[in-house]
């Protein structure tokens, strides 16, 4: 029974990892840009949701609002700063986003303090679900369901709509898109905002589960990289499968060998890379 509990926990965790990783993945796919500030957007989403709830907003308002504000800030950053560094070598993509992540993290500490805090789940979901012997927090069930809907919506957006077609075509050949008359600069901004907004949403959703603290961004970045490496960069299915795999593995390990939970994740990643250098779903 504890295993079922942990697997459900892992599902919720894994879906959040998926949201993080898929944002990272589409930003990289279109912009060829490694975003080391991705964890910072997650951090910001969590803190904005925290602030919203503290100020008396309902979680149902604070959560989407946090994601939207993060997306807006990301769009602004892309336009004012990142756009200037696209043509530089990758070293500088990493340097500038590492710098950005530091700035965000320190600003969070300045504004909210170094200690962090807790976010109460929304009242409607603050209870537990009881099925026989089985007790499970309702909020976590909601996260699983909500993120599953979101994942389906995202798949629809990227695979079935015109915007998705543009994004995928842009990943293949930005020069051709520009030749066809698409405003690639605006598409870049939109995609960066979408990816960052997903990270922000993951942060806001995670806040009632794990609370908020200033260093959650760094941790999330590491996990997002692992998920992308295991799943294969640029693969939606890979991000989903690897996200769930990592989430469930981490939850199961939390009962089996708590101290080694993280270690096992990274060892597993090394093993998968040895066997399949492109990741589970990676393209050539």
């Amino acid at each position: 029974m504890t295993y079922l509990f942990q697997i459900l926990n892992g599902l919720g965790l894994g879906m959040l990892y998926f949201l993080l990783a898929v944002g990272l993945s589409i930003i990289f796919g279109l912009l060829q840009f490694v975003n080391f500030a991705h964890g910072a957007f997650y951090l910001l989403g969590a803190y904005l949701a925290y602030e919203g709830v503290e100020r008396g907003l309902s979680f149902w308002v604070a959560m989407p609002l946090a994601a939207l504000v993060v997306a807006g800030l990301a769009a602004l950053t892309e336009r004012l700063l990142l756009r200037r560094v696209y043509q530089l070598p990758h070293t500088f993509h990493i340097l500038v986003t590492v710098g950005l992540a530091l700035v965000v993290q320190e600003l969070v500490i300045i504004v909210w303090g170094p200690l962090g805090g807790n976010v109460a789940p929304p009242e409607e979901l603050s209870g537990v679900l009881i099925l026989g012997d089985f007790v499970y927090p309702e909020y976590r069930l909601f996260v699983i369901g909500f993120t599953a809907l979101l994942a389906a919506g995202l798949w629809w957006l990227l695979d079935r709509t015109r915007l998705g077609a543009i994004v995928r075509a842009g990943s293949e050949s930005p020069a051709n898109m520009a030749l066809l008359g698409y405003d690639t600069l605006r598409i870049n901004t939109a995609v960066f905002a979408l990816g960052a907004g997903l990270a922000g949403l993951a942060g806001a959703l995670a806040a009632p589960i794990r609370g908020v603290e200033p260093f959650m961004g760094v941790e999330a970045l590491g996990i997002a990289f692992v998920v992308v490496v295991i799943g294969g960069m640029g693969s939606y299915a890979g991000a989903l499968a690897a996200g769930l795999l990592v989430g469930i593995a981490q939850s199961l390990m939390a009962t089996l060998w708590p101290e080694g939970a993280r270690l096992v994740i990274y060892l597993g990643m090394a093993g998968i890379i040895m066997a399949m250098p492109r990741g589970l779903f990676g393209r050539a």
Partner: protein
Amino acid sequence: MVPLLDRPLVQFGLALAAVLVLPLVMRSGTLASEILIYGLAVAACNLLLGYTGLLSFGQGIFFGLGSYVAGLGLVRAGLPAPVMLLLSLALGALVAAAVGWVSIRRQGVYFVMLTLAFSQMFYFLAYTFSGLTGGDNGLLDIPRPRLAGTVLADPWTYYAFVAVLFLGLFAALQRVALSTFGRTLLAIRDNEGRAGAIGYPVRAFKVAAFAISGAVTAFAGALHAMLIGVAPLSNIDYHTSETLLIMTIIGGSANLFASLLGAGAYLLAADALSAIWPRWLLLLGLLLIVITLFLQRGLWGLIEHAVALVTRAPPVDDPAPDRPVVTAPEVAPAPEALPGAETGRAPEVAR
């Protein structure tokens, strides 16, 4: 014609001058030793980033490894410090070769993410096996080395010990960079496909670069543990890797003295700023953004510029410090991809 500042003797002379000047201008021997130790680790990082074009987030693994090796040997096994320093060199090379061998299976961004994931893996290894590493507390009570019967307890005495080793390894790294091997690394950095087509075993060269870099980094880590008397968990964590990379880029890539400059500038600024404002990392973040936008060749590029102004020599051609690692040519034609920049780089490879 090799630019004056890039000549090996001038570079070594600058390093020697720095080693001699630090005791005259600095009050803290500990901080001065730290500058040399980090300078060494940063020079090793530069061998990968600047010379081979490999941006690795794994340098902290080797730095931390060196600290633990020194700590375990000195505290638990009671072995003499020289043995532990040599052992840290050997183990650093070994682990770095292994990490490198797996990581270079992927290129560009994937490579970067793999090294980052490895750095996390080793961090959690150290965290999980706390019986060996002391976990969160680190390995405590690491003694200073003994030389001719005296313990190098005084900060400046230890500084002298570090300085001699620093100069030796700095010269060794210079030899590596100037050798045919080092030149081939530059060729790999500039055009991996071509280097492979000519017949160089590119992978073996990259693994070798990793091994040398890891050995020197672990050595620096061991010196650091003896300096502060602890092998802390933080020496092996992601931030150490990140800091070493930042120091490398602040200094300037593909130039060994620039690495000492980067380490010194970072540590002195950190020391001064952290005393004034606990949130100084905010300024560091802003600095990184400014460097990316305006100072891509680092402090060394600034110095080259100043020297060019003074000697009225034609300004150094400004090639970007390193090549785009993965950017496909059709993604934004980079200015450094223009023929002019190619010629600016050519003599460096040819000499």
